[in-house]
């Protein structure tokens, strides 16, 4: 892993911009901060391949990862930009001054720091495209100073007419996120996929209701004449690609069972050619 960038002075920030950190969209977006740029932040830093964006996402804590999986799974979300810098700097300074709070500074150098928002989502619904800004913090994580910074961030987005949301996570979202991660992880980076005929065959077997994972896999392997390890992967694929809706509120992997709420019939009919 490359060493982190030095981000202390205004010239560092400009150089970052020049190297296109924090700008662009979709596959071209580079987060303002990458996992290797952040050293002291506690929590789990991970890089996850985005199935919607086609690039590596930099997630700086476990709560960020949790939110990322959920946002990516949401149908209306078309682009996710993490560590989105609030530029121009003079506007965040202006907001801070208006609110009467101190603008964040770089530790050691007292130079003004560039603020970031954890996630900026591009959503599309009914042909309309709009943005949502999300700040992600663990529930116990709001001290007075954090709150001040979050108020600057919140006002920034409200002034821009962008909905600002706050995500702290709970047991349910944690389970959902774990399930999505479990279901989608073999299919990130787009290496492994299954053919339409395999999907069709699997759809013929899958029925709504509670199933033991083991039974489901046995059935799929014998029907599709595939290797035994593929049985589980097909189930995961069907969930990841939303061929089936399953109850995500409890951990599928640890329970060893899956509750299929519905099978996407529209998709089944299309693939059956009816």
């Amino acid at each position, binding site marked *: 892993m490359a060493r982190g960038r030095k981000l202390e002075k205004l010239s560092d920030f400009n150089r970052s911009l020049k190297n296109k950190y924090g700008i662009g969209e979709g596959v071209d977006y580079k987060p303002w901060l990458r996992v290797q740029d952040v050293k002291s932040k506690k929590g789990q830093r991970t890089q996850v391949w985005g199935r919607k964006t086609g690039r590596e996402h930099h997630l700086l804590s476990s709560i960020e990862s949790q939110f990322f999986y959920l946002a990516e799974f949401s149908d209306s979300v078309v682009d996710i930009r993490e560590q989105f810098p609030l530029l*121009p700097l003079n506007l965040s300074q202006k907001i801070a001054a208006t609110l009467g709070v101190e603008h964040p500074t770089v530790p050691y150098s007292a130079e003004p720091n560039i603020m970031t928002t954890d996630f900026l989502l591009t959503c599309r619904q009914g042909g309309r495209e709009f943005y949502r800004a999300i700040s992600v913090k663990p529930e116990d994580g709001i001290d007075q100073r954090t709150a001040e910074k979050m108020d600057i961030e919140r006002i920034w987005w409200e002034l821009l007419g962008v909905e600002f949301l706050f995500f702290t996570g709970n047991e349910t979202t944690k389970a959902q996120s774990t399930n999505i991660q479990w279901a989608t992880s073999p299919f990130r980076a787009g290496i492994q996929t299954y053919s339409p005929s395999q999907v069709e065959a699997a759809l013929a077997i899958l029925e709504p209701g509670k199933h033991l994972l083991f039974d489901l896999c046995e059935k799929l392997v014998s029907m599709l004449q595939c290797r035994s390890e593929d049985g589980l992967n097909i189930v995961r694929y069907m969930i990841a690609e939303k061929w089936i809706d399953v109850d995500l509120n409890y951990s599928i992997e640890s329970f060893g069972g899956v509750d299929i709420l519905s099978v996407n019939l529209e998709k089944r009919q299309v693939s059956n050619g009816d």
Partner: protein
Amino acid sequence: MRREPAEYHEAILPEHKGNPLIEALKPKLGMNELLQKFSNYPNLDQHIRQHPDPLVREEYTIRLKQLRQPFFIYYQCFRAIETAIKDGYGQKNPFSPTTAQYLHYPVEERPEIAPRTGYFEPKAETITLIGSSGVGKTSMLEQILNYLPAVIEHDEYKGRRMEFTEQVIWIKVECPNNSSVRDLCEEILASLDLVMNRPKETPASTIGGLMRQIEQRIKSSFLGILVIDEMQRLVFKRTGGENNLLNFLHRLVNKLGVPMLFCGNPPFDETLSKTLKAARRAESAGCFQMEPLKRDSDEWEAFLGELWEIQWTSVYNELTVKLNDKMYELSLGNLDIAHRIYREAQRLVILSDSDDERINATVLEQAYARACGLSSNTEEIKVQREKFLLPTGNRGSRKNSQQEKAAKPKVFIADITRPQHPEFEIQLRELVGTVDLPIRIRDPDMFQRAAELENPVDMLKKTGIVCDNPIADLDFI
């Protein structure tokens, strides 16, 4: 190349009086008047600033290159040239028998009988101008030489008809790449044909013949000064053949009395000092070293002050000390580089997506990187720029809206004090400029109030800002 009919002014020196070649020259001017003549301040056309089409304004930045800010050295150099020309013509009064003999016989074959007025005594001096590339040597020469007409057309001088009707004041040639005498001769010949409006003369096939041809042409055209640019190309390759060219030039000076001006980049002075004779001759009428301007010099202030005024940005950018320092830091006093940086800076802000046309230190830095192609980053930027300009239709499944945007060349300025995300740009710019921010903020301290409570999330949930269930929530508008 300007031609002017002769207009005679009485010469100052008694020995120059009655010499039409000298009296046809421009009357002597003082320093201030001369510097006025050497300057050129491009037209600003203020109204263009308001022009709605950025491409039009960008086009105007081409005019930046027309700026000529003369310095004291212009005056010094001009005086040296003027003196050398007059001195050279001093011996060549076309009405004197000396000149008649000089014109008639090749230098080596003149008869034993001296004319009444004596043999022709070649008198010619050489001026050297040295300076690294971009400091403005060529611009200066252009300004100075173009002040003088290239050709003066004589007809009658005080009732006497002139035999030679054309007097060539100056020609400028470039030193050939391979230091070849032949190439230089041919170039001189071609330049003379060009200024005298003659059909191209076929160069003689032997070097000897060619040199005689040149001699004859230089004599009959009354060449005032021969300017040779790019003298750094004169390299000593082998012993023996090495200074053929230099010898040839010496011959022109010594035998024909043609003043010369050598102009070249710094390695050239080393070349010259290799032979004492060359060095002595080369500075006989003065040696001028042009150096990049110093930051605290009046010249820099004058130059940048003038350059800076030439701007077609929608807002007027004032030249602050900080920007002045930055320009100096980037150009290191090199006028050409300063020109390029400033032009690029204007193009950057004019063509950028944003309406923000302020020029600041960051913009200058970026302009430098683009205009001066020295760092590896620049290559990258160039490639990126080309990418922006090229149609992106064949890139498959990218969003259509992006292809439409690409129609306008996108220029990107890495400056943290500018909006960087086109999707929010209009609002961001408005917000940066607005004064009523406090009124627009509905709830200035929601999180701060919550943080004081025992359970902040409970309170925040009531405000609807908490996203409890992203999978479901995000699919609602």
